[in-house]
């Protein structure tokens, strides 16, 4: 196999037929479910959030990740209670997947986190009568996904209270409230990024966090007090599904080596190969349109291939009359024939697919003759021609194939990558692009008017 991933395929010969298996899988995984440290969500531990002080009481109990905090600015002989105005706590759990996820693709994911909160009326929220205010008191509940070293973390759900503690109402509690999630795509990206950092691509950390912010809202008559009776992250459910990622350029072959055709006076006049092929289910064309069956002679690929999408569930011949592969037969070397399944792009596959090959035949016809013609000048001429063609082809592929604008983009990108000095590039400004379009539209109108006059004159004639 050249390139790709040999874990993605399995080849075997049984019942006198070759079986090419492409190995797909689908799994669903529940990273956490329910209340932290209940039987369905074990392994949560408590941590400081960086340098922030912890709230007064933090614990994981039967209600979930629990916090109690009371800010009393007057606390202590020198009002040192003020340092407790922005406490925070993290609850973490490491999650391990049973597989190396670099071979899999997460196809869907969901997260749901509930919290409960209760505060005293002294917690201040917009609308309350206070001496001064800016951003008010608040508690922020959140869920983050991080790598094991916690060097990068991505917030995937959050809820910051805004009205909790409001005197009108009053609003002093919140029951079983859902945090607001990021989009499913962002959630998947966060899990992928965390897994990327892990050498085994199978471990990451879930962080549940509670930040409390107590603003100093009292100007006179003593210090501010904010009592947070309880802030609880009650449940956190994170589940996702993943499918096997079949890597591009994965290939699988059956090979046969046969003797060489040797002798100066031998001329090969025809080589023809054919076989029957079938598939156990329709090929998922939408996932991989250009995956194909190839024929290789001595590692040279024959120009015609069979798209896997053309395979049916009953045996059919690869080509009526077979493939004419004479050009690939070289004298004096052993002839190695391969039939190869080639997967052209990466895709996710949720089940196995088998391709069958049977009744392979390969005929070579040759004649023996005496070479008399001096073909040296012809060879030189042809070689020069080929060199010119290849140079032209390469220049076209790397340069002229692209429109002028793309060439400018590519050139600048190359210079930036190499750290070269960058000269200003002459391009149309936004205003000029719009102005040019208006001129074009006016020009269109003039041309159409002229055509209209011509048309009328013609009709009158």
């Amino acid at each position, binding site marked *: 196999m050249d390139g790709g991933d040999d874990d993605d395929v399995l080849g075997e010969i049984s019942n006198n037929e070759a079986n090419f298996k492409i190995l797909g899988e689908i799994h669903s995984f529940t990273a956490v479910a329910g209340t932290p440290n209940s039987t369905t969500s074990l392994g949560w531990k408590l941590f400081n959030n960086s340098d922030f002080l912890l709230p007064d009481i933090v614990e994981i109990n039967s209600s979930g990740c629990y916090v109690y905090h009371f800010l009393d600015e007057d606390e202590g002989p020198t009002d040192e209670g003020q340092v407790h105005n922005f406490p925070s706590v993290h609850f973490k759990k490491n999650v391990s997947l049973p597989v190396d996820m670099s071979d899999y693709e997460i196809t869907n994911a969901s997260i749901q986190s509930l919290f409960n909160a209760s505060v005293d009326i002294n917690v201040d929220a*917009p609308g309350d009568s206070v001496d001064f205010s800016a951003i008010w008191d608040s508690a922020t509940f959140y869920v983050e996904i991080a790598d094991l070293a916690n060097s990068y973390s991505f917030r995937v759900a959050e809820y910051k209270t805004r009205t909790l503690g409001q005197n*009108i109402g009053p609003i002093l509690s919140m029951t079983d409230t859902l945090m607001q999630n990021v989009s499913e795509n962002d959630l998947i990206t966060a899990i992928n990024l965390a897994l990327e950092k892990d050498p085994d691509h199978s471990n990451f950390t879930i962080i549940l966090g509670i930040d409390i912010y107590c603003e100093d809202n009292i100007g006179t008559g003593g210090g501010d007090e904010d009592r947070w009776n309880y802030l609880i992250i009650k449940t956190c459910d994170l589940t996702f599904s993943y499918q096997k990622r079949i890597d591009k350029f994965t290939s699988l072959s059956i090979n046969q080596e046969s003797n060489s055709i040797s002798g100066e006076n031998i001329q090969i006049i025809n080589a023809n190969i054919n076989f029957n092929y079938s598939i156990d289910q329709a090929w998922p064309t939408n996932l991989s349109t250009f995956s194909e069956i190839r024929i290789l002679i001595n590692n040279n690929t024959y120009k015609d291939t069979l798209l896997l999408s053309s395979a049916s569930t009953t045996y059919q011949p690869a080509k009526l009359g077979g493939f004419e592969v004479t050009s690939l037969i070289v004298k004096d070397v052993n002839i190695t024939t391969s039939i190869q399944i080639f997967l052209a792009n990466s895709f996710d596959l949720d089940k196995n697919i088998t391709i069958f090959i049977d009744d392979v035949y390969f005929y070579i016809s040759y004649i023996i003759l005496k070479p008399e013609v001096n073909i040296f000048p012809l060879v030189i001429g042809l070689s020069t021609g080929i060199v010119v063609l290849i140079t032209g082809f390469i220049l076209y592929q790397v340069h002229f194939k692209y429109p002028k604008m793309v060439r400018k983009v590519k050139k600048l990108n190359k210079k930036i990558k190499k750290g070269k000095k960058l000269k200003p590039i002459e391009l149309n400004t936004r205003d000029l692009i719009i102005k040019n379009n208006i001129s074009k539209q006016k020009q269109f109108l003039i041309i159409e008017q002229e055509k209209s006059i011509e048309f009328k004159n013609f009709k009158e004639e």
Partner: protein
Amino acid sequence: MAKGFVITKWTEDQGLVVYHRYPENLTVDLDDMMRIFYAHITGAGEAGNVLVRLEKTKSNVSSYFTGMESTTPLMINLMLELGEDPEMFGEAVISEINKNILQYMQKMTENVGESYEITKELTAYMKDALLLLERLKNLSKEQRMAQIFSSERARTILEMLQERAYSRGELRTLIEEKTGRFISNLEIALDPFIKTDIIKQDWIEGDSDITLFLLSDFTVMRVPAEKLIENAKKNLPTPELATKYMKKVSEFLNAYEPNFEDNMKVALNMINPDKYDFITLFRERAYPINKIPKGPGEKFDEIRAFLKSLEDDNILTLIKDKTGIDWVFLLTDPVAYTFYPEYLIENIRRDISEKKIEKKTAIKHLELLEQVYKK
């Protein structure tokens, strides 16, 4: 879907009272209304808009307040689902609805004897407004662009990204600073940009935030109505009408120089679903005024009003045929003209030379610009 409208008024003796609601079975919690009221009056109590999230009724409320200085302080509350944001419909549309509701309220104050009839009219208007909001969620690509153009916040986002790529966090901060308005949900603000393929969101390795890249640009403008001109070239609908039409179009477009006010006028016509239906109809051919296809339940007077407003904005024009019947033509075709933002290539060169952006951001942006270029 928007749930309905609640109009409340504040009086010295009664406090806050619900004045009118639509639909009639819409649940209104007076505590919730007080919360919204407080959100308005915190500070100077001036006229303006707030967006309030109500947990209890699981609603977002886009609320307009006439201010404590007005004769009768009124709040017009548009009750939305939790996932909805007024920006989804465009601030211009919501302002227009609020303005019209206020006119009904004004009429009611001035003609107390007719208040029953006016209330009936107001109810019918609110019903239509909710229908309009629902239709605004299913805009075409060019209408979404017009919506971006007509919104100050979206326009500011576009202008920022015309300069360079920004992370979502940076963009949010800069937009809030520039517009002085809090962005409650950046996802919703970016939604029309993503749906129209104007921007792409992507991670750059090593960054903790997603970066936003402008990959296509547009402006709203007028162009000749291509199909109608093709028809006129063939003397359609009649030789006389074709000549008159070409003359009118030439006169208008030769003098046409786009400017912000005119572009805004064009954009507002495009985002109005009823007017947009007429624009797309007249893009195909001209119609005699008495043969314009009518929608179910549409009355001729209503059609006439839409046509008049489009004519006033120089989008439609009426030309009389020999028999004296008016034919309706598209004078100019309002379009969102999209183009490749080639100027960004020079911006990226300038920014990297002046160290305003990181190398990896420049490389990523150039790679994306290379991928989207079509010729």
